[in-house]
């Protein structure tokens, strides 16, 4: 089991970084540039790890990124990666969707503590924007997840995956829920138009303002792990999971590319615009999907 966990983390690390490299490449191509190397994220992270000094504002500042990374890894191991496989099944069976929903916020909150300790007002502004954005951002996603749970009458992800084998994929059964969840996902990936918390031009890159060196590297690494975890979650919930590594990569990449395409073409919303928007159309779509599940499912 421990071996499997290490394997999983490494897989997620590699895949996550490569995805981010691809993301930067694809973005560049859309903007008619060449773009950096696919492995640029590796370079960045190794460079940051090997920085010769790092600012540290105290122990809470030190622990913040660690908590965030812990949250990401815990999220990762609690999501079933493969359907029809015993891979880490004994671990994933200990949690369920609600645990995941809240674990996804635990990391950012731990990081927010570190940002607060840093004492940079811009960092805190970024955190507050992030948390405010969360009010709107989680709404469509929650509705989608709740809809799926009610449809499957279980908050166990494995059960939801299994159910899709008999009833068909959820993306087809519940397209409205899928749209809602995807719009939220754009925000969860920090993409435009919901990327206000870390806007460099306004709040000095927000929560990450004071982080440097190994802390920044750790944050980047957990970001890629976390991104992978979120992609797998979407695949599990809507695309019926993946029974092999190829399918996993294919499906997650499909989702990822969709998110990139949405993100690249939009400008940035102000935080209140973002929340207002999220509480209108995406929420409405998701609620319609939910109503369909509750009343006609």
């Amino acid at each position, binding site marked *: 089991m421990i071996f499997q966990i290490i394997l999983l983390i490494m897989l997620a690390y590699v895949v996550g970084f490569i995805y981010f490299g691809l993301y*930067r490449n694809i973005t*560049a191509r859309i*903007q*008619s*540039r*060449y*773009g*950096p*190397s696919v492995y*640029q994220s590796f*370079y*960045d992270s*190794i*460079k940051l*790890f*090997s*920085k*010769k*000094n*790092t*600012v540290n*504002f*105290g122990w809470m500042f030190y622990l913040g990124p660690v908590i965030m990374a812990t949250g990401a890894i815990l999220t990762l191991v609690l999501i079933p990666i493969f359907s029809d496989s015993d891979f880490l099944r004994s671990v994933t069976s200990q949690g369920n969707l609600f645990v995941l929903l809240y674990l996804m916020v635990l990391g950012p909150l731990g990081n927010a503590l570190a940002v607060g300790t840093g004492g940079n007002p811009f960092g805190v502004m970024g955190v507050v924007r992030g948390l405010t954005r969360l009010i709107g951002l989680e709404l469509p996603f929650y509705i989608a997840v709740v809809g799926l749970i009610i449809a499957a009458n279980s908050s166990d992800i494995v059960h939801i995956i299994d159910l899709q084998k008999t009833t068909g994929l959820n993306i087809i059964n519940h397209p409205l829920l899928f749209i809602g969840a995807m719009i939220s996902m754009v925000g969860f990936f920090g993409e435009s138009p919901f990327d206000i918390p870390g806007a*460099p*031009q306004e709040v*000095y*890159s927000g929560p*990450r*303002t*004071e*982080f*440097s*060196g190994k802390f*920044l590297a750790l944050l980047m690494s957990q970001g890629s792990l976390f991104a992978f975890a979120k992609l797998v979650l979407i695949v599990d919930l809507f695309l019926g999971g993946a029974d092999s590594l190829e399918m996993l990569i294919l499906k997650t990449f499909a989702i990822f590319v969709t998110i990139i395409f949405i993100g690249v073409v939009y400008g940035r919303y102000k935080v209140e615009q973002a929340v207002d928007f999220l509480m209108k159309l995406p929420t409405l779509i998701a609620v319609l999907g939910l109503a369909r599940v509750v009343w006609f499912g």
Partner: protein
Amino acid sequence: MESGFYGSSLDDSLKCKFEESGLENTHKIMEKAVNWFRSRSIFVVAYGTGCGAIEMPPTFTSRYDAERMGVIGVATPRQADLIILSGYLAYKTLRRVIRTYEQMQRPRYIMTLGSCPINGGMYWDSYNTIKKLDDYIPVDVAVTGCMPRPEAVIDGFVLLQKRIKNGEKAGWEKYDENFEFYKDNQKRVLGGHIDPSYETDWYNLKSGGKA
């Protein structure tokens, strides 16, 4: 201020390990690898002084795309490896530049654009600009031209990458070694407006209050 030795990092800690186990060659390879990675990933904080600021957007956007070389802009000095000063520096600006530079994490580099930071350029007799930036903070790469075109700036990046890759002694090491020299020079132009040196540490008042 930030005096003292800041030599230890991933490679340094590994260096000890390797030296203990008699694997100095391996360490040298590691160091080379790390230097290569450093050269491939340069985070830039672009300090737009003077007229050179206008040259930076094309450098980083579609037309010249510095990102393909791993050079990418960031917002805060904490994350940056390189600061680009794009023109003449008034005394007031110098103060901020020094502060920004000192907040960057080692290894850190400085790149200047145009002739003004080298010798004052057309501001050679101005009462409020500095003439030779290298006297106050160590410049690693100075790109000439008035103003240098993006191609020249990219050439500067390439030069810098080459030097990092080769592990040449960089400006930040000089700054740490000759700290008093630089500070004296800074004090001479800035007079009483030099930034505080933060001797009292609020967080450690319990233990004497010294940083």
